[in-house]
């Protein structure tokens, strides 16, 4: 099994005919994801990916015609919040928003609508998720994965790849790898993904990748200490050398007022039973030291 996505995923890609949307849709399809529909307003009735995927004008129509239950959004920043609302209104319960550069205030009503609808949003500004062997939604390169039982959750994109590659190189496969995104207003925090991993019988270990800014890692650590005490847990926090008051690329990655430092996150994670790596390459060794034997 896995979390968020898997064999029962029926994916609709919003913005499938755009440059990025088409490129990554092809990769998802090649990975074996059940990509059943695309949406581009005005292109309803056409097909995408060499005739393999029907394109609809609206998500509602895509859901009605194809039974799509998961959405992946590549719509540009100006239209992406609306695209999330459209997916919610069409009854989609699992939504990945890859789009970056969305103004933070635009997302506030959107995450509230997602919450009210009982749906789940990953992102925006996230790389998506992969459940190795069954489905890949988003932009994480499929080649870095290996099927297994380690759950990976991360705020970053390429740093996630780095960590996953290290695991795979060491022979540690993953149940699901989730990039939750680095924006200040995101649909799912680390803790939300931890809750899913905790309930997943096939996830037997946990890798948490965080970075400076906010207190999401600390909250996740506290939850894991209570609810995942017996699960081998390792973590890596980026930004130990980041200066205060500077926004390190991610809108969320900023240390302000002495809050959100790497040091505070590392100590919170260690107190919660995580082994914290100094480099992503250390993660496999630490996971074995934590008692993980797969």
């Amino acid at each position, binding site marked *: 099994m896995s979390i968020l996505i898997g064999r029962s995923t029926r994916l609709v890609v919003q913005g499938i005919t755009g440059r990025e949307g088409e490129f990554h849709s092809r990769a998802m399809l090649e990975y074996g994801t059940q990509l059943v529909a695309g949406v581009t307003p005005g292109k309803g009735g056409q097909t995408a990916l060499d005739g393999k995927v029907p394109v609809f004008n609206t998500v509602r129509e895509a859901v009605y015609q194809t039974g799509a239950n998961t959405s992946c959004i590549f719509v540009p920043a100006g239209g992406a919040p609306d695209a999330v609302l459209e997916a919610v209104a069409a009854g989609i319960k699992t939504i990945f928003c890859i789009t970056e550069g969305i103004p933070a205030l635009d997302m506030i009503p959107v995450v509230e609508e997602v919450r009210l609808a009982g749906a789940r949003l990953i992102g925006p500004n996230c790389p998506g998720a992969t459940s190795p062997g069954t489905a890949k939604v988003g932009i994480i390169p499929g080649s870095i994965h290996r099927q297994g039982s380690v759950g990976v959750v991360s705020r970053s994109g*390429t740093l996630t790849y780095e960590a996953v590659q290290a695991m795979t190189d060491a022979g540690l496969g993953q149940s699901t790898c989730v990039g939750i995104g680095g924006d200040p207003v995101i649909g799912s925090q680390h803790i939300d993904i931890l809750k899913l991993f905790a309930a997943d019988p096939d996830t037997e270990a946990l890798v948490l990748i965080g970075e400076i800014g906010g207190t999401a890692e600390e909250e996740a650590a506290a939850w894991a200490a209570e609810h995942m005490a017996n699960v081998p847990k390792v973590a890596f926090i*980026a930004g130990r050398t980041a200066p205060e008051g500077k926004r390190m690329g991610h809108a969320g990655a900023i240390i302000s007022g002495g809050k959100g430092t790497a040091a505070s996150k590392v100590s919170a994670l260690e107190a919660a039973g995580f082994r914290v790596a100094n480099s992503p390459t250390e993660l496999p060794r630490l996971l074995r030291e934590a008692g993980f034997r797969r």
Partner: protein
Amino acid sequence: MKIHEADAKSLLVAQGLPVPPWEVARTPSQARAAAVKYLADPANATGKVVIKAQVLVGGRGKAGGVRLASTADEAEDVAAAILALEIKGLPVRRVLVGPAAEIVKEYYLSVLLDRATKRLMFIGSAEGGVEIEQTAVTNPGAIVYEHADPLLGLPDYAARELAFKIGFGAHWKAGAAIAKGLLRTMVANDADLVEINPLAVIRETRADGTPVERLVCLDAKITLDDSALLRHPGHEELRDMDAEDPTDVEARRYDLTFIKLEGDIGCMVNGAGLAMTTMDLVNRAGGQPANFLDIGGGAKADRVAAAMRLILDDPNVKAILVNIFGGITRGDEVAKGLIEARAQQVRDVPMVVRIVGTNAAEAAELLEAAHFVTAASLDEAAAKAVAAAKGAAA
């Protein structure tokens, strides 16, 4: 993006908020002219003016950047002194001149993006005039919080609740109206933070000579959401070029995220988290990063070349570490950019390149043909770069 107090106040005034009058002066004589006006204003209860340095760093008061003056001559002298200051490395190019307020009571009120709740949050306190972080330590019970509704904003009742909780006394209506105005300012400008400190009850003199009290925004700090700048074309004018490195401008042009640091190892990475990690590993290997540089997703050769120019513009840079994990970004594109950049570069700086992920094999071939120093792992790349920098320094 941070903006100056005077610009922040203009944004507040545009939303109908009460802000005492001010003028911005670039020269002592402009400051004198403004002072003459405010010293003669019968509403000015103190009979003095305040002159405040406009710089985008905190602690300007302690640095001598905020001073009073009682006469036009004094105002001119004070302005000249402040305009000659450099505060935390930034030159003072402008001062704000306004009537010196007779403060009856100082409050604190701000609205900011609260990531944990995914809502906008008001922070208020009857202990104004000091940094809220300090109040949070010395008297946390004096701070009140109120979240805006994600769909309704701040309804009147919530603004009243906030005003009563802070304790504006007779000024509760004004306090509630200002809270609503701060939210409007936030939304109208796509700000991350709108902070009024102090929000103060000041005493002014009516035309008939009797005193009158009102609640006003005495200072203002606003930071804008960089992701939303494109839909506020007017905001680009508010950018303080003095507070920016010229490289920042260049970086923006190529859609690069570049932050100059103090070290000597230039870093070029795709992805913010990986860029921070690269810095961390350089540090761990005994080196100091010269910058944070995220070339973003899907970077093409020209963007890579621009990134390389930015790094080399820093004379401190003694070695360069390129770390690319190709997802969207194609490794061979980056390799081509690097080869092109090195062909053009004036200064010969050792470079260590690690490219993995999408099209890594093609990249490796290109780099090998061009005799680049490469590394398989990030740890190895960091170690090699640090060694190269030390070698260059020796």
